[in-house]
């Protein structure tokens, strides 16, 4: 629907991460936190903010220091920088929202190994100017937040009958407890992905003569991973 221009305009860097290249829903990155911490909306928001902070801060730092980072050891350097920011954010979360910090468990610390963050450094911040990297990081954080909120809302509303702790159904509603338990996470994400694939297929069929049914992105530039095999680091196997 949105046709990318030849030279990508600045707003596009920000907007692409929100939906068209959504890190979770399109690229299937960062699945662990998406499934693990979305049993309530509050958890999802805190996780989204924490990850967003780390992503924006490390993108800013890495893109401004990219001349100083030797190419051979760039990945380890990125990980060290990310780990530093995660340590910071871990203390902030523990100090400001201790209850949620307990509910999130190890997943705040595990932002270090979230492939979205390392992926953006490798694919974007390590090569692009600071301003663009910050926009890109903000967009991707937004996209991650959207995915988390989507999952969190569905799971909390159906699983506990509440939204941010406020009851949304009458007292007659029997919560679908399974939705807040681990299997519910897998099922919710599966249905969201099904809905997205389905609507994309429909659109491409009515939009234009598609080259092949199921080909979602006829005019997109490279990088969009097909939904087939996700993976941060296992794709090469």
């Amino acid at each position, binding site marked *: 629907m949105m046709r990318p221009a030849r030279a990508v305009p600045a707003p596009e860097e920000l907007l692409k991460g929100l939906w068209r290249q959504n890190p979770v829903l399109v690229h*299937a990155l960062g*699945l*662990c936190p998406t*499934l*693990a911490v979305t049993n309530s909306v509050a958890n999802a928001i805190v996780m989204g903010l924490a990850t967003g902070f780390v992503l924006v801060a490390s993108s800013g730092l890495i893109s401004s220091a990219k001349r100083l980072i030797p190419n051979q050891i760039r990945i*380890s350097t990125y*990980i*060290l920088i990310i*780990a*530093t920011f*995660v*340590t910071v954010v*871990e*203390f902030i979360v523990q100090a400001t929202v201790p209850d949620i910090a307990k509910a999130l468990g*190890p997943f705040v*610390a*595990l932002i*270090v*190994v*979230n*492939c979205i963050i*390392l992926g953006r450094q490798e694919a974007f911040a390590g090569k692009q100017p600071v301003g663009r990297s910050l926009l890109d990081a903000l967009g991707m954080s937004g996209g991650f937040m959207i995915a988390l909120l989507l999952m969190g809302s569905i799971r909390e509303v159906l699983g506990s009958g509440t939204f941010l702790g406020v009851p949304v159904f009458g007292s007659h509603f029997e919560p679908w407890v*399974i939705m807040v*338990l*681990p*299997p*519910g*996470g*897998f*099922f919710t*994400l*599966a*249905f969201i*992905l*099904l809905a997205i*694939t*389905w609507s994309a*297929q429909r659109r491409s069929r009515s939009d234009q003569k598609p080259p092949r*049914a*199921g080909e979602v992105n006829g005019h997109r530039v490279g990088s969009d991973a*097909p*939904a*087939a*095999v*996700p*993976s*941060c*680091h*296992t*794709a*090469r*196997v």
Partner: protein
Amino acid sequence: MGDLAWIFFSAMVVNNFTLALFLGLCPFMGVSGRIETALRMGLANIFVLTLTSLSVWVLNRFVLETAPYLRLIAFIVVIASLVQIVEMVIKKVSPTLFRQLGIFLPLITTNCAILALAIFTTARGYGLVEGLVFAVGAGFGLALALVLMASIRVNMDLADVPGVARGLALVLVIAGSLSLAFMGFAGLLSSSG
């Protein structure tokens, strides 16, 4: 002794890293296409988890006492370098073993299951033996989930799945069903604990 058995089975089935705690999903989704690959990945996981457990014990015991805020950075750097060194050693000493496990070793270093094990071990204050038992249990749990998933996916190749559901969505539905099945083990915890 009973305690150790409890730690082992708790980590392996009741709190299965993949199906109950959502850790290590990337290999779970990515390399579960064939049973043999899944099995090797599982073995490599058990190996790296055991190594991690050892290094975490050393770090916690001798280094991080004085600087707990460096925990995360120290874990990730030490684990990554250790795995890299071990990979080189295996390549030199036993090329056969390297062919079996080799390519998987660097990949799983950045797997969240590994770092989570380090964090859990620290948070629960496990000693050396408990930590090792926990790591092996968690490793077997990951391997079990991987092999189960691969076995189901191999059969799914023959099934007539609607085009829309192919790919990740199908894997997630299967994972959800497996996770449901594993919830049945929760009773094990309360009856023995």
